[in-house]
């Protein structure tokens, strides 16, 4: 188990810069997720930590040791791929034992440790089978067992759940987190799926266009996005352009279309420097639709429902208030609002976040 540190890492492929000067510190035992859309540099970053790619500039430090020049087979990392990458010509047990054979582990110990790893991923009886005979979820568990049996310093997971179907993915999410917590290995997880990132991580690193947009705990990243990109990428957000008309120690007051003046608490506006252009971020699930105006101090405006996307326990509403299009996700009580309905739309200032404009 080791900490991982990236020190001003740059990766260029010819004229294309895949990762721009990035520094990152991953503490020992943490579960850190690199989150971003495809092409944001998250997989490139992971592959540099793994040693599958050399950084153009900067240092990679694992457990206090610079590993730039250490070839991949000496880095002692566990690597799990999206497509499992199990050796099809070897049995499950041979797959899991593969890494141990290069570590001078006595034969009897290999058998025991392979069995322990299979037990850990809850597939104790498949050792004699070939990977092809297993389902996708089972294959990914075996890939995980193969990666952790060598007791890696760092576990690197490259979109390990993306090839699984939706239900299985959620099960595996819990399972993966359980196993990681159990062995306590430092883990770097790459995904484009925000719900995976929010559910599993100690820290999320949001990336876009080769740059780190924000680093923080899931709740911080979700509730206090540092940029418009983060606000849009995680969950559904309404972003209203306006002016910051007052800025002080207790928060900022923003003047925006539709809602008028809103006092955002300081904790939700850490990136705002002072007065001037600013943006207000309101999560879709923090925008409430009501038949009658609520009496709880919320800011309420009239709006029209333009379209309804029914999702069972909740519904997503596409709304229009004045000239502004908004979206809201509300739990359904009774029955959802109909298309064309006139509703009262309310927000609480403490649910809003402010960004520099």
């Amino acid at each position: 188990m080791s900490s991982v540190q990236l020190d001003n890492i740059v990766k260029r492929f010819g004229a294309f810069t895949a990762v721009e000067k990035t520094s990152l510190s991953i503490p020992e035992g943490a579960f850190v997720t690199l989150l971003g859309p495809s092409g944001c540099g998250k997989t490139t970053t992971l592959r540099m930590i793994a040693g599958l790619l050399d950084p153009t500039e900067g240092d990679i430090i694992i457990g206090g040791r610079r590993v730039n020049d250490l070839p991949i087979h000496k880095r002692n990392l566990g690597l799990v791929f999206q497509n499992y990458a199990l050796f099809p010509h070897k049995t499950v047990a041979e797959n899991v034992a593969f890494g141990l054979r290069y570590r001078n582990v006595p034969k009897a110990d290999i058998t025991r440790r392979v069995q322990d790893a299979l037990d850990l991923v809850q597939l104790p009886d498949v050792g004699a089978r070939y990977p092809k005979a297993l389902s996708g979820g089972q294959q990914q568990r075996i890939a995980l067992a193969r990666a952790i049996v060598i007791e890696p310093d760092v576990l690197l997971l490259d979109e390990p759940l993306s090839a699984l179907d939706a239900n299985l993915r959620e099960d595996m999410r819990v399972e993966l987190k359980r196993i990681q917590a159990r062995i306590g290995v430092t883990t770097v997880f790459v995904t484009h799926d925000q719900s995976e990132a929010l559910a599993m991580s100690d820290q999320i690193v949001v990336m876009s266009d080769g740059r780190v947009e924000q680093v923080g705990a899931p709740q911080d990243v979700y509730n206090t996005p540092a940029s418009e990109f983060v606000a849009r990428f995680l969950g559904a957000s309404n972003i209203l352009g306006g002016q910051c008309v007052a800025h002080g120690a207790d928060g900022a007051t923003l003047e925006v279309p539709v809602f008028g003046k809103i006092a955002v608490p300081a904790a939700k506006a850490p990136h705002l420097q002072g007065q001037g252009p600013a943006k207000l971020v309101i999560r879709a699930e923090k925008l409430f639709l009501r038949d009658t105006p609520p009496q709880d101090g919320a800011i309420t405006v009239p709006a029209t429902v333009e379209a309804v996307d029914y999702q069972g326990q909740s519904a997503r509403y596409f709304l229009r208030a004045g000239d502004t299009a908004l979206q809201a996700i509300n739990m359904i009580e009774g029955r959802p609002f109909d298309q064309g309905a006139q509703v009262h739309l309310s927000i609480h200032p403490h649910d809003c976040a402010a960004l520099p404009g």
Partner: protein
Amino acid sequence: MSVEAREKRQPWILLSPALGAVTMLLLVPLIFIVVYSFWLRSATGPDVVGFHLDNWESTLTDPFYRFILFNTLKIAAITTVICALLGYPAAYFITRSSGNKMLLLLLLMLPFWISYIIRTMSWINILGSSGAVNTFLMSIGLISSPIQMLYNEVTVILGLVHFLLPFMVLNIYVSLDGIDTNLEDAATSLGATRWQSFLQVTLPLSLPGLAAGGLLCFVLGAGTYITPLVLGGPQDAMFANLVFEAIITQLNWPLGSALSMALLLVLGSLVAIYNRFLGMSQLTKGLG
């Protein structure tokens, strides 16, 4: 006609041109050859029609034929091994080269656009007594008279390797190209060196392609008569030369038929053994 009956007939109707061609151009001539092999050639008149085992008897018992068959299989085997050793690195290089893969494959196909006979004859201009190598060696004064390099077993094998190498490379390439590159990455991340992960993962997974290429090289090599005719001496005759000799020179169609059927059976059984263990699908993959 019911829908079901029509659906059953449809594939056969669509296949009929191909089946017709295969029947007329392959099956019928083959039956002719089988029938011929039981006739007898008479020194004076037309061939004697009937069921005579004389040609088969001499084909199977004549020690000269057996020696030539052994020699043929030996040359084909040596050629196949050389093709595998030369072809594997080439195929690996093409698989791993990014960008210009298509160009490299095109270059590999290029020789097929020139007649195999011309390609074979080109070695005379290189290795012949007034060929490039001898002219060069004489001009720098290393030798005073040309060295005899042509017309031996080595040049036959050289010509065959020249002819067959692309088949080997293509088959291995197809096999290597189908292997997920993550597998080698996974192996190295688990502690194997590049070379160990090649031996443990890539090589075993590419064996079907190697076997398919080997089979093609062996069968095509063992069935050739052009190469030994052009680049070999009298002592380097291969089995197909016997067939050529019997049919073209001696006009002995019945004996030639029996000889060619014998070669067909030997090579056919090799293909059958291959099919038993690896399946024909791998072979067609390489040709596609």
